[in-house]
């Protein structure tokens, strides 16, 4: 690994993103917009908005970074830039960490804007610190990024990559405990949700937003998120081949 190359890669990814102002606008505007809709929809049930809204602030970056990363990496594969990079003195980790730095930076901005709107304008209240929510959001963004990097290897077209969102992200959202508490789900669904990284992301966020702190259980959740991120990055590195058939 080489800090110069990692850093150059992060800057390159951010420059590419800057060239696409519409995507930036969507990245920043959509989460607050959805939260505003949620508040409106639960006009007569503000408790549900309070219960669901907090964790959602920290879960948005997971799904956005998943899509953005899988498309970006797919483009690297289809335009031949990945093959070029693999023929250059660049370590696979330089590329993956470069992506990580760039998308973490985007996640910080996205989560900050979303929290500012949620906590400042929409009246969302959480028991814990909003900074902790933002920090968890950035962690979840990295989790979404590494998952996106990995699954992009299985997509040949951008259509396929986009379809991975409902296929891989939605089940995790449905079962993570956000909509229905996990102890009220069928046993088999609980077991499935145990294997899904987003479950731990939700639990950690829920701890901060309802109990006010991570607690010992929350520390474990964060460890699982970090472990899953690293594992997925390792899988992602395996899909980056110097030699192809």
């Amino acid at each position, binding site marked *: 690994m080489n800090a110069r190359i990692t850093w150059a890669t992060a*800057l*390159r990814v951010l420059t590419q993103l800057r*060239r696409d102002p519409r995507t930036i606008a969507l990245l920043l505007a959509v989460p607050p917009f959805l939260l505003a809709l949620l508040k409106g929809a639960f006009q007569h049930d503000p408790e549900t908005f309070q219960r669901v809204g907090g964790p959602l602030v920290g879960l948005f970056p997971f799904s956005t970074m998943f899509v953005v990363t899988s498309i970006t990496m797919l483009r690297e594969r289809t*335009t031949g830039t990945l*093959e070029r990079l693999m*023929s250059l*003195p660049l370590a696979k980790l330089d590329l993956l960490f470069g992506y990580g730095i760039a998308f973490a930076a985007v996640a910080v901005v996205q989560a900050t804007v979303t929290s500012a709107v949620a906590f400042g304008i929409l009246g969302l209240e959480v028991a814990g610190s909003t900074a902790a929510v933002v920090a968890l959001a950035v962690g979840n963004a990295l989790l979404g990024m590494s998952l996106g990097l990995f699954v992009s290897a299985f997509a040949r077209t951008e259509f396929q990559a986009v379809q991975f969102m409902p296929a891989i992200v939605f089940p995790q959202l449905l079962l993570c405990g956000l909509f229905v508490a996990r102890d009220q789900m069928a046993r088999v669904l609980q077991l499935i949700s145990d294997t899904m990284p987003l479950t731990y992301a939700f639990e950690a966020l829920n701890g901060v937003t309802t109990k006010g702190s991570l607690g010992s259980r929350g520390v474990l959740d964060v460890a699982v998120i970090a472990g899953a991120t690293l594992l997925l990055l390792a899988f992602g590195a395996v899909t980056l081949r*110097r030699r192809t*058939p």
Partner: protein
Amino acid sequence: MKRVVSPVGSQRVSPAVEVGDLVVCRGGREVLHGLGFSVAPGTVTGLLGPSGCGKTTLMRAIVGVQVVESGRIEVLGRPAGAAELRARIGYVTQAPSVYLDLSVRENLRYFARVLGVGHERIEETIETVALGEQADQVVGSLSGGQSARVSLATALLGEPELLVLDEPTVGLDPVLRRDLWAAFRGLARSGATLLVSSHVMEEAEHCDELLLMRDGDLLATESPDELRTRTGRDELDDAFLALIEEREE
């Protein structure tokens, strides 16, 4: 058939590329059937043959990005694909492999940082490929020929000892083509080895040596003049046809 391709009158030196019994399969089909040849350093070698004859596969194998079935490939004294070679080889794929949403200069700046070369090289290579006026334009807005030159510039950045160029002059206007061949010649003179593919026989004229390919086999490795003398044809196109007929008899 195996001989060292070397410029007229030069001494025998260790080859820049040495390939032996190279077999490559793609999509379950054997596409290179046991090729062998070598390329002398400081030469421009043309890899010529019709579309689909295996030129790109051979180049990929030499660069070390192709999974090979069997055979031996030595590049600059190291096995092809060795990590140490990555900074010493420049490879330009047929389709421009640069970032379409970055400007010419931003692309070069990124690859210069990856290679660890100085800023002055960025301006020099922009000059070499004659893209000064477009330097701050986004590559996606350039013409096909211009983006191909961005891709070429990227490979020139690190002043590689071996340049592998897959159809670098396709779709370029004659003036630019002439200038690029002059640039290739200049690079060879300064010691670099160039392997340049083309499916147009007239390009062969610019090369010291030719590797003539057809259907995954090597028909001949010789200089343009040798080819003309041996086949008794003045036009290289005709000479190539004569070779094929000779092979089929």
